[in-house]
């Protein structure tokens, strides 16, 4: 049988291996226990022992890791640590290098916080649609806070700087302890009906989870939820988130930040107003100037217009002359025509016709007279002829030759036929000179 020699460590190598194994296996552990033998030398690091009934564990927490923590562990505190194991080889000690610690009771609170948060979220209290916008320039705002804390001072200081023209109504409340939550809820209810209040700021300075606990209570959450005014939640420090922060319309990381959110920067507004006023003026002046230039441009045409007017005037005169000439020329022909017509008219004139007619009349009269005279002469001669002829034909002339005319009395009917006369008839016998009335003796037909 071979004798196997075990590996022989040196103390260092064994310790080193222990160290490696511990560091690998326990690179991140959470440990709870009681603080004892707490020391904080000049270096600032915490050196303490975590212990429970059965064992103890050396621990160190370097300054850089705990400096920012609010919680300062005390002798005898039950705490929860997070860290890694290591071995301090020189002394053969193993210890816990703590990078985070907190009081042990915190766990229960944190769970309650998570549970309430989930429940209220499910009910829709945190819904973004419910968030009301903050008024741009509120006249009056209400501050629900402790009148003695730092929060109110921080808020007022910044508000004064940004916009002093505000009315701030401070409603004093307890901000920690068991009575705080109902107090805060009552404040919110009162202020929501208070005249003139346009926004409510819930403010509290920093503290532990227990300190801030009232702002995680359901009664406060519901009061914020039913508040008709916008609510700004400014509780604790930047890293603290409370239920109030979730329900509120706006979360401010600090009370000063809340003042910045609620109070507008008056200086900035005034500057903006001034810029707008200047731009307004410039805009108007530019427009006016444009109008002026336009007018000037148009008015520059006027001197030309004057020359144009002169030119036009000359033109008008020239044209007028030409027109007159043409008119006169054109009148020549008509004038002649007129003269022609006038003379024709004259020829047709009644006066002339009258004169002519008179002339003709006179001529005709003269001719007529002439004719008449001539005709009269002729007639006279004719008459004379007829007279002589007549004289020759005078039956009584026959009587001169001895003939006699017998006519039967009383009718004096001329007797040609003797048969017609009976014996004893009265007969007139006319002779050349005188007449004899006779009685018939005898009739014979020879």
């Amino acid at each position, binding site marked *: 049988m071979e004798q196997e020699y075990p590996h022989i460590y040196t103390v260092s190598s064994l310790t080193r291996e222990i160290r490696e194994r511990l560091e690998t296996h326990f690179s991140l552990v959470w440990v709870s226990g009681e603080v004892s033998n707490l020391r904080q030398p000049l270096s600032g690091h915490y050196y303490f022992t975590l212990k429970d009934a059965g064992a103890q564990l050396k621990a160190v927490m370097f300054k850089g890791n705990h400096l920012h923590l609010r919680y300062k562990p005390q002798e005898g505190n039950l705490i929860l640590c997070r860290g890694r194991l290591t071995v301090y080889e020189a002394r053969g000690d193993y210890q816990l290098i703590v990078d985070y610690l907190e009081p042990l009771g915190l766990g229960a609170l944190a769970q309650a916080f998570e549970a309430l948060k989930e429940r209220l979220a499910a009910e829709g209290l945190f819904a973004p649609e419910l968030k009301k916008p903050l008024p741009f320039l509120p006249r009056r705002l209400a501050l629900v806070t402790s009148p003695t804390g730092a929060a109110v001072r921080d808020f007022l200081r910044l508000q004064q700087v940004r916009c002093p*023209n505000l009315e701030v109504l401070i409603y004093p409340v307890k901000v920690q302890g068991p009575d705080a939550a109902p107090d805060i809820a009552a404040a919110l209810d009162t202020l929501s009906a208070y005249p003139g209040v346009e926004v409510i700021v819930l403010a509290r300075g920093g503290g532990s989870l227990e300190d801030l606990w009232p702002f995680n209570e359901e009664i406060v959450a519901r009061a914020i939820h039913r508040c008709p005014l916008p609510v700004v939640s400014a509780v604790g420090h930047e890293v603290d988130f409370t239920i109030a922060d979730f329900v509120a319309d706006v979360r401010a990381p600090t009370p000063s930040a809340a003042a910045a959110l609620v109070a507008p920067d008056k200086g900035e507004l005034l500057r903006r107003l001034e810029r707008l006023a200047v731009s307004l003026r410039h805009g108007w002046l530019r427009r006016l100037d444009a109008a002026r230039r336009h007018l000037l441009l148009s008015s520059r045409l006027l001197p030309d217009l004057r020359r144009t007017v002169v030119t036009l005037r000359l033109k008008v005169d020239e044209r007028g002359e030409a027109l007159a000439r043409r008119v006169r020329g054109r009148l020549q022909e008509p004038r002649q025509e007129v003269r022609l017509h006038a003379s024709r008219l004259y020829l047709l004139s009644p006066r002339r016709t009258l004169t002519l007619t008179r002339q003709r009349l006179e001529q005709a009269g003269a001719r007529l007279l002439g004719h008449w005279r001539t005709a009269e002469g002729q007639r006279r001669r004719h008459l004379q002829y007829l007279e002589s002829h007549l004289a020759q034909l005078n039956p009584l002339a026959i009587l001169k030759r001895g003939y006699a005319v017998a006519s039967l009395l009383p009718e004096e009917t001329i007797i040609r036929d003797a048969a017609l006369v009976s014996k004893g008839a009265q007969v007139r016998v006319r002779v050349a000179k005188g007449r004899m009335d006779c009685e018939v003796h005898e009739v014979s037909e020879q």
Partner: protein
Amino acid sequence: MAKGKKPVEATFEAQLKRLEEVLEALEHGDLPLEEALRLFEEGVRLVKACHQKLDEVERRVELLLKDESGRFFTRPFPEEEGE
């Protein structure tokens, strides 16, 4: 704005917005002269109104307290010196 708290006259915010509108129109619009003048005058009025609104409210910090009968009253809030 929170419900039930709307003031009758235009809010500061609304007036500021209108002022910016007027400016925009004046700078970019091809406005007839009379219209431009009208807008300018409106702008001047708005600037004045906005200034007024900013100075309207006086600073007042008060503590809201309740007396024995439960009625509310206010008292000036003491401020630290040098603030």
